[in-house]
């Protein structure tokens, strides 16, 4: 089990959290049905949580034995800015999806992310976002019939208008 790789930044904290989390889960699993019977609903959860705890303690022992890596930094190699920004953007997306709706939220998300990650010009990022959102919307809304929050966009009216337009053409 012992590995020779040096300990990465944050690894010790993560391993301690895993061990504490496993201990908490074992306590919760014990609360399901205690040691009532081997076939009780809490039996497998207890074995599972106990396995996690034993493994987490073994990993912790191994992590403590390894020397920390000197060439890596937490803010550069574990949680670099693009990762933090992306997590924040996904959270913001989830928060804004219902009030704003799928189309505007996705457009803003893509435009900001493409501009930030690809470092392209703003008009290019906006244009790409429009095209991608249009394709995703057409494929998933019409082909996969996925219902997404309409939000501020009067989607039903637009679809009805497009349908009426085509119906009119057909006449």
């Amino acid at each position, binding site marked *: 089990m012992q590995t020779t790789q040096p300990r990465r930044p944050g690894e010790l904290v993560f391993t301690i959290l895993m061990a504490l989390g496993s201990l908490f889960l074992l306590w919760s699993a014990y609360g*399901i049905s205690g040691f009532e019977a081997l076939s009780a609903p809490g039996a497998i959860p207890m074995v599972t949580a106990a396995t996690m705890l034993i*493994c987490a303690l*073994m990993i912790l022992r191994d992590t403590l034995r390894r020397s920390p890596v000197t060439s890596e930094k937490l803010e550069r190699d574990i949680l670099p800015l693009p*990762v933090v920004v992306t*997590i924040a953007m996904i959270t913001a997306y989830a928060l804004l*999806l219902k009030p704003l709706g799928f189309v505007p939220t996705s457009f803003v998300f893509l435009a900001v992310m493409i501009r930030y990650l*690809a470092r392209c010009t703003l008009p290019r990022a906006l244009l790409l976002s429009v095209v991608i959102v249009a394709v995703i919307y057409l494929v998933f809304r019409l082909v*996969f019939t996925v*219902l997404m929050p309409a939000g501020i966009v009067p989607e039903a009216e637009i679809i009805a208008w497009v349908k009426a337009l085509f119906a009119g053409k057909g006449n």
Partner: protein
Amino acid sequence: MDVLQSLLIPILNPELLGLIALGTFAGIYVGAIPGLSVTMAVSILISFTFSWEVYPALALMIGIYMGGVYGGSRTAILLNIPGAPAAIATALDGYPLAQKGLAGEAIGIVTVVSFIGGFIGIFALALFAPLLADFAIRFQPRDYMLLAVLGILLVGSLSGDSLVKGIFAGALGIGLGSVGMDPLTYTERFTFGTDALRSGVSFVAVMIGMFGISEGLMQLHTVNTAAVKQKIGRIIPSWPLVRKHLPLGLQTSSIGTVIGALPGTGGDIAALIAYDHATRVTRNPEVPFGKGAIEGLVAPETANNAAVGGAFIPMLTLGIPGDAVTAIMIGALFIHGLNPGPMLMVEQPDMFWFIVSALGLANVFMLIFGLTGIKIFVKIVELPRAMLLPVILLLSIVGAYAVSNSLADVYWMLGFGVFGYFLKLYGYPLGPVILGVILSRLLDDNWRRAIISEQESLWMLLKGTLASPLSLVLFATVILIFVSKTPLWGMIFRKKAG
């Protein structure tokens, strides 16, 4: 006659045929583009197709799986970046060929041998799965329990750098799978008194988080790596070249099928073992291995495509997934109300033969698409990752939301995505987590059946296990995996070697 009718379903239905073709085409690109994985694509796709009929949903997913396993070889050859883990061995000889200006030839031979390997795996599936299903009907609950443990252990031991981390990940998956109301006694498990957890954690949210978001976050570390430009020459390989490597291809296809059929192993391991086999049986390669040997392309590519058919054998006959992708496919079958396992073959043989036929068609489409449109393909693969990643993330979010139109699933997905990212960073394999979630119910139900049938006695259960040849083999294998990873095992073998 019924078999023939089921085999003809996807062939005679233009919609299904089109979906298999579309899936295979998309799969080649998904498999080829570094940062996109088949597991990721299939997990996102489940959320979009769960309202479909089962045949079209499966047709699309099977196409993506088959195309994706092959597609990984493209970027392995062109850019020395395997698009999928199953193509790691392909890069060893594929990229040196591309450097010599022979990328077209390499892609051509890889396409043809992948097709051959794919058919051998599908043939094995059609031949052996019905036999295994007949045998599996006689399995006892303890055998299923042991098979579930074995599957998780094998994935845990083979997919990461440490067995302990693999077991931790597998146990975590089983724990996640137990969240909610116990289906037998309606007791709450790991719900912490919250209503949101009573119906359990959304499997699709866990899956998209672990394979979509966490992979996307990992890719951010290398987001600005520039793509290498390539030139493509002749593509379709000559018949003498194919004939020359056919014997090796047949051997490695068999290896791929067997390894793919073992619970917990998949195309990536099959490809590496096949490559190793090729280096040992090829006495005088025209070009040394690692410098552009055709044998080094034939072996892994036949094996990983043969492993696709092989992986469906335990999945359809025992309900045990072969690897992460088949674990997700099992999830898809569950979502569509099917129950993979020996009874599927008895109750719905049409489903089995449909899958065989769809795999065969996907294999043919793989050959067609593989030998055409390579120049356009090269352009698409050169798309910067910085533009692809936001789209992948957006699709993941939409996918998680679409399952039950619930924002809670998006938060779960994000939570598991961030958690999966840290697990990956610190060397924990994610495959066992998904396998654990999928197998949790099978393990729990069969453990309880087994122990109740032995009057709640562990001693009786052990006696029963030792008295049955099948249970004994499974039990011994589980013990062997444990022991083989202990320092004691290493000491014994070092002493023997000394």
